[in-house]
């Protein structure tokens, strides 16, 4: 599994930049990031190379931060591959809460982040179906 940071951000100018500035200053590398269009406040979800350190420095700067686990799935860069994985999850009767993808990793295969209602079970189902699940 992959450790994801959820950071509370307000819906105002510069709030996401406030988070990334702290990461930059502490030389923490961002691997994936997602935020959604919400009216009042947002939860910025990020994957970084040093999750515990990132949490500590963000808290020091006054952010509310939670670390939780998500599943990272390595996909093949061709039509239908995300469809294949989503069907495996759906067929197992599991519910996807949200997905987002890693930023480009040079020539490596794309990695997609999945948050599913029953994480452990989802990871097992994916592995059983020969989907490549990656770690941090």
């Amino acid at each position: 599994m992959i450790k994801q940071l959820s950071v509370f951000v307000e819906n105002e100018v510069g709030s996401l930049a406030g988070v990334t500035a702290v990461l930059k200053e502490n030389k923490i590398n961002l691997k994936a990031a997602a935020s959604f269009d919400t009216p009042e406040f947002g939860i910025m979800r990020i994957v970084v190379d040093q999750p515990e350190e990132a949490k500590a420095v963000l808290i020091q700067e006054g952010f509310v931060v939670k670390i939780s686990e998500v599943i990272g799935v390595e996909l093949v860069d061709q039509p239908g591959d995300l469809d294949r994985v989503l069907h495996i999850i759906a067929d197992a009767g599991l519910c996807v809460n949200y997905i987002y993808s890693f930023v480009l990793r040079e020539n490596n295969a794309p990695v997609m982040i999945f948050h599913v209602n029953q994480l452990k079970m989802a990871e097992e189902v994916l592995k059983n179906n020969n989907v490549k699940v990656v770690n941090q």
Partner: protein
Amino acid sequence: MIWAKEETMSRTELEKIQLERLQDTVKRVYEKVPAYRAKMETANIKPEDIKSLADLAKLPFTVKQDLRDNYPFGLFAVPKNELVRIHASSGTTGKPTVVGCTKNDLDMWTECVTRIAVMGGASKEDTAQICFGYGMFTGALGLHFGLENLGVAVCPTSTGNTEKQIMYMKDFETTVLVATPSYALHIAEVVHKMGLDPQKDLKVKIGLFGGEGMTEPMRDEMHRLWGSDMLVTQNYGMSELIGPGVSGECPELCGMHINEDYFLPEIIDPNTGEVLPPGEKGELVITCLKKEALPLIRYRTRDITRLMYEPCKCGRTTVRMENLSGRSDDMLIIRGVNVFPSQIEEVLLKVEEIGAHYEITVNRENHLDTMEIKVELVDEGLLESYAALGELEKKIKHQLKTVLGIVASIKLVAPNSLQRFEGKAKRVTDLRKEGI
């Protein structure tokens, strides 16, 4: 410990002193303050008409506007060369209100504050840090002289530069913190932010808080931040009457003992001005009994409380005033429902997922009152989903609706994003009043 014998007198003895001092004060203002004389003549009252404490009700009230109308020294009962100190209120609207003290007034003020410091657990073994702003505000110097009189080592650190305050607190082994509750809260946050644990790294064990009211959940918050064994008391006063020193809490925490030999309290119906029977809630009115420079008669404090005359377990016989429900000036009327910001605070501080700071904005949209409350999210557990954060907003709204009957919209904001205060907190903005 109890400082003065006047605090444990029988009611009969006390009332005898009060009547003598009242008669003397009324006579003095009648003779020396033209504005008072005129008021009494209009009301057809002469000093000789005050034969019992009950006759107090015959005298006209004094209100803040009277001080402004007689700016700066018009209500003073002594010539200016008798003054040894002049203070003024901040005066957010119009002219400030000016208050003065003679040498005797300062001694009496010091005596009153010393009693309150002792009530709040201080002794000559203590080191106190006064984190009230020094200057024209009476708070800092009032506590300063009262604590010095007790033999406490006083550090006049004033407000500002909170990290340095904390350095002194650590290095001087400060045991008594004097501040507004808002600033005490902020100092504790900075202590934590500096990586210090107040319970291990600091020796503060007494909080003497004043300048603004403190609700019970706010007291709990102080214990959480500063340590459960901290003795957290609040005291009350206002510059027009003397400054701090009018009343204060003892360790029994069942209201604030009024220094009744110097301040004679009444409770009135704020609308009719009628005196209410003991125990009823209404506006606190105070008559100064021994003041020389500015002896205000029946001063309307605008503070809402009730008086409790039953003797206290601490041994004091002086009347206790209930911790303030609010100032009548601060009361908000939201779609016909009366609510004090302190009541909103009580509801908010019981919600664990949010911090102790909040901002209330009242407005009127399409002829309807609206209230928005900003609160700081502190519980990381809710970041799992938007639904959990939405639930929190709903929960707070529901609490406000069921406890206070008001409808408010809740806005979650990031921690430490709301304004922090070094003096009195300003947490309410009423845009209806400001005519925007």
